[in-house]
């Protein structure tokens, strides 16, 4: 059996859906954050696969951008979570409902 584009994409979609599930269903903010990263990386996987099978590098350029931005985002996001935890003494999503009217 040769491994084709469809396989890569299937793995990518599964990873994406797992990440989505984590974002929607997990209660801890840090876990939610990690699930978010998982979704980004699922996208990366799809893009790399496209690059490989289309024989050009545009997908890989995109992936580098995403990795860079994600690194910056992790730095900012984790700092926010730490600040939030210090302020509220909690890292649970349902306690962070201050957007409610």
């Amino acid at each position: 059996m040769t491994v084709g584009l469809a396989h890569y994409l299937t793995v990518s979609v599964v990873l994406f859906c797992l990440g989505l599930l984590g974002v929607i269903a997990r209660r801890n903010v840090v876990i939610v954050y990690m699930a978010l990263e998982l979704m980004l990386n699922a996208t990366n996987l799809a893009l790399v696969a496209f690059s490989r099978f289309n024989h050009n590098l545009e997908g890989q350029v995109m992936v580098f951008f995403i990795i860079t931005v994600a690194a910056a985002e992790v730095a900012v996001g984790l700092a926010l979570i730490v600040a939030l935890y210090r302020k509220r003494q909690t890292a649970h999503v349902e306690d962070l409902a201050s957007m409610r009217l």
Partner: protein
Amino acid sequence: MHAASTHLAWLVLLPPLGAAAGITLLALNRPAVSARLSIGAILAAFGVSLVLFTQGVEGRTAWTWLSIDDGRGTFVAELGLRLDHLSCLMLLVVTGVGSVIHIYSLGYMRGDRSVGRYFAGLSLFSFSMLGIVLADNFLMLFICWELVGVSSYLLIGFWFERPAAADASKKAFLTNRLGDFGFLLGIILLWAAFGTLDFAELEQRIGAGTTPWLPSLVGLLIFCGAVGKSAQFPLHVWLPDAMEGPTPVSALIHAATMVAAGVYMLCRVFFVFAAPGSAAPDVIAWVGGGTALLAALIAVQQNDIKRILAYSTLSQLGYMVLAVGLAGMAAGAHPVPAMYHLTTHACFKALLFLGAGSVICALRHEQDIWRMGGLARRMPITFWTFLAATLALCGIPPFSGFFSKDAILALAWERQPVLLGLAVAVAFLTSFYMFRLVWVAFLGPAKSQAPDHARESPAVMTLPLLVLTVPSVVAGFWGIDSYLIEHFRPGEGLSAPGWLGQLTAPFHHAPVAAFSGLIAALLGIVFAWRLYSHRVQDPLPGLLDAAARPLRDKFYFDEFYGRLIAWTQDTLARGADAVDRWVIGGALVKGASGSIELCGRLLRLVQTGSLQTYAFLFVLGAVVAIVLMLGW
């Protein structure tokens, strides 16, 4: 005859109009100037009327005021004057009686603060009344009709600082407007049906035959106008209150001319009622007869000298309206008796009012007859002229009222015996209440200190009385009826018998009517003499017991109308309040705000504040978008 003479008719109208405008603009604060202007104007109008009458000018003259082409036809509004026997006679009555009353006013209104305003009102009234008389189409008639209403309003409320006068003027105007509403509807209906408002054209077209219901409906609607202006039941309530105005005004407007305008109008457009199969004449006759009886009954128990005369006017107007209705009941008849009675009544009723004014002036504005008495010796001219007018009103031969009233009774005898009985009863009541007035006020003993200092009025007031006495006494011999018959039936009215023949004619022509009327009148005098010749208090309430009360209280019409109007207004106000509260405030305003608030509350449920719910909804939206884009 020739065209130049018909243009003369404008000259009747212009002097009073000029005087009214001139006084209002220039001489409002100059009593002498305003009086001269006004009296000069009415005398000029009288002179021109006399010329027109003696020359026998007939024809019409018109000035096109508006001409509007609306695509389907041309609407032409003309101010047209029509000269014929009817209008010439009425011109003489209005300007003649008017002149006398204008001069009398000079004495009666001496010393009043706003004489200028008074004469301006009189001149305006004269102009509009002459406009009604001369009008040859409904439009002009209606304009002058309303102008007459306005001047009546101004003159009733002349002493507007007195609340009673101010209220009376409002009441008169509003009641008149109520009738005029129907009148206007009738005019509009005529315009819609025939496309013209000209009397001559309308007469031709209605005579040529129409749908059967049209003359009935139009006749009744037009009669509404006459009911208001001539104060017939059920709109009669304004006339007695109108006595709050100065007495010469009561004489001119509310006895001799304006209230007669309704009857004149009915005679002028008699062709509407004469149309075969019209139901209007019966209604008119019964309304007239009913008003005559009702007013005569009320007059029996009134104590204010002017109010007695006012109810007597109502009653006599009822006679005239009755005559119009009776004339319309049979085909080919003419309303001459109504016009005849209108003419004689104008003279003797004006004389009665002027006599009353003379008494009121002499007693320093005392109007209660039970505070008068013994005035015959102190005011001989006033008394004898008043007595002559009273005899004319009661229909005692050879005074003028006998002939005109007999013409009506004879007509009733021909058409409707029930109405003859009613008219005879009114004749009895008329002489009863009039001689009650004469005995209590003039002949009986003095009932208070007031008459002790009474003196005969100055010549400027007694002279008009004497002048008016002449037609009141002898107008029956002038052949007014044959002159009028000329108008409706050319060629038939020429054979007027000599004066002796005229005196006995009623007894040959319709003896039952003539004798019953005469006997009723004499009986009334005898009853009044037996009851009132030496009394200082009214014995009638004691004799009639509870029956006298409704008579004195005018059958409670004012109270009833007051309640009715209050009830109507309350109901309307409650209805409007309910609409405002429930429909406008409730359904519309509160409904708009409520529905928006409900939407807001529903949308608020979505705003949970939970990050994950938002994320879930976002994904859901994305999925939906993808599905739609891919077209699954």
